[in-house]
């Protein structure tokens, strides 16, 4: 793992602790029920745990900084498959595609947003065949629409296709 990111996460945890303590300070008890430790105690405890955990990670990382050679150190997390190149960018591309999908779903509707997401995500995963990608995207969208909208009676967003689907009897 990259020790710089590990360090940055440690700092982020520490800062999150400060943020939690700040917000916790503003919590005010409401209502007639009163108890000894009140509604702020747990958030305070969470903030303090974050401060301790973040400091532990940062100090531990800094302590071994000079003795380590290079920025990539033994992983404490789940390792990648050995002997296969790994790309954080590829993973981030899938994450971005997922975010855009959730943004697009209410606007474009499920039947349009879903194939676009599947196509974008499979291209991000470096799948080559356009024909296979498009067929997979369309078959998946049709199959899941039928299962969820018809059998499980879930109202999926239809976007601009709402009237068309309604007139064709494809939506409830």
């Amino acid at each position, binding site marked *: *793992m990259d020790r710089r*990111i590990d360090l940055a*996460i440690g700092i982020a*945890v520490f800062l999150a602790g400060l943020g939690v303590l700040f*917000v*916790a300070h503003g*919590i*005010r*008890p*409401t*209502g007639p*029920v009163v*108890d*000894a*430790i*009140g*509604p702020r*105690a*747990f*958030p305070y405890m*969470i903030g303090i*745990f*974050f401060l301790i*955990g*973040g400091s*532990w*990670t940062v100090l*531990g990382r800094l302590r071994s900084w000079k003795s380590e050679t290079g920025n990539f150190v033994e*992983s*404490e*997390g*789940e390792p*990648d*498959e050995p002997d*296969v190149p*790994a*790309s954080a960018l*590829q*993973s981030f591309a*899938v*994450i971005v595609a*997922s*975010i855009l*999908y*959730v943004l697009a*779903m*209410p606007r474009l509707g*499920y039947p349009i947003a*879903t194939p676009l997401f599947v196509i974008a*995500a*499979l291209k991000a*995963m*470096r*799948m080559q065949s356009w024909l296979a990608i498009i067929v*997979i995207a369309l078959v*998946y969208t049709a199959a*899941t629409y039928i299962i*969820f909208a018809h059998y*499980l009676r879930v109202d*999926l967003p239809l976007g601009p296709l709402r009237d068309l689907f309604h007139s064709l009897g494809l939506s409830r």
Partner: protein
Amino acid sequence: MEQFLSSLSGGVVVLADPYVWVLLLIGTMLGVIVGALPGIGATVAYGLVLPFTYFMGPVPAVAFLLSIAVGNQFGNSIPAILIGLPGSPATILTVADGFALHKRGETGLALGIAYLAALGGQAVSILFFVALVVPLAGLTYVFLAPELFSLYVLGMVSIISLTGKSIPKGFVAATFGLLIGVVGLDPVTLSPRFDFGTRVLRNGLDVEPVVIGLLAVSELFRQARQSFQWSEVSGNLVAKFPSWAQVKRCIPPMFIGTVTGTFIGAVPGAGTTPAALISYQQAKVISRKPEEFGKGSIEGIAANEAAQNAANSGELIPTLGLGLPVSGTAVLLLSALTMQGMVPGPSLTRNSPELLDAAVAGLLGGTIILLFTGWWLSRSMMRVATVNRSVVIILCLAIVMLGIFALERQIFDVWVCLVCGVIGYFMTRYGYSVAAAALAAILASEFERTLRQGLNLFDNDIVLFLSRPIAATIIFASLVILGLGILRLRRERRLLASPARILEE
């Protein structure tokens, strides 16, 4: 004895419903298929189907989820034998023996022993499960707020010591889960917390999007880092079933694996991997041919596979007996129950005794289905391992997001799931246990409520609160488990770094 028989017969009664059998058939086959896809484990499978369980009752849902676990453990052994890729860390020693047999052209022998050991381990461990969980659930009548609070501490400490490779990072992860759990109205005074004046956060975050995001979506994002295909199956598949003499030789290691797997699976802070490793070592000690271990020993496969399947039942003992899950899949199982309106904790089985029947039905029905389909599936699954990996990952991701939307028809839940998935991705990569965070998010509200209400009952005296005998014992046990967890991590690191070393030892 009466309760023992009643739970077993309750499970059989649940199996009288054809609808349950359909679910079990789907669950077991899905479990085998997902298990046969290296790296796509039971956690992702649970994440995929969890939203669907919302549309079932609690009994079919529990039975369905457990049948997935039954199929999954057996499915894990298939790529281990045919491709030499462990489906999970626990199958690392199945690779050593199973793949060696496959390369020698004795694939049928390896698959057959794995199949029989999975069946035997699963079937026998159901009896152990019922025998242990029934008295445990009976104890819950003496549990008041201090004992409940101590149990939640035990649960969190256990999962911190079980998952991840760093205990301090595990604590940070659990704290993150607690933070998610305290968003919304506080459980005693109903004061709003961390809602930033927004209506959508006022009632807190739903547990399901959080848990699925942390456990399943994060794993899919992590898998998306690499593009490769699961290897083609090498060598010729000679699917000849083992002879009776070979099966007879494997009965003692299967028994060792079953007993070890059930008990170690039930111990908070242990899990499937140590259960499999310890069973393997024990089987080697009693074997007449210890020199074969690691080079194609059927006894090694038998012990390992029986232990993994038995650990399924073992994990359920604290999950259903005390409401304390000890693995990622157990957390998702508990999440499915909270989705059905049940409150996690020791009163879970007391309030809903039908859950025990459902668990027995799921394990027993899954085993029966595996009995009739497992051998055929194991030979068919070599094609599954050649499915395009990228397509599997992306379609799993799409189904999970759709499933989360289907739960409450809210895009906001999908956002929560996605954000938790991204955070979980970094947590997984950098050693922060997502299972600990997920469990803490589920237990946070009850954890806080039992402490605060308990303190009110005991005149705000924390010493009085924690010095009740059962509470003090559980807190002490938590500290012991924490210590054992640290030792286990050190040992597991050594063993997993060099499987050959276990064989030598």
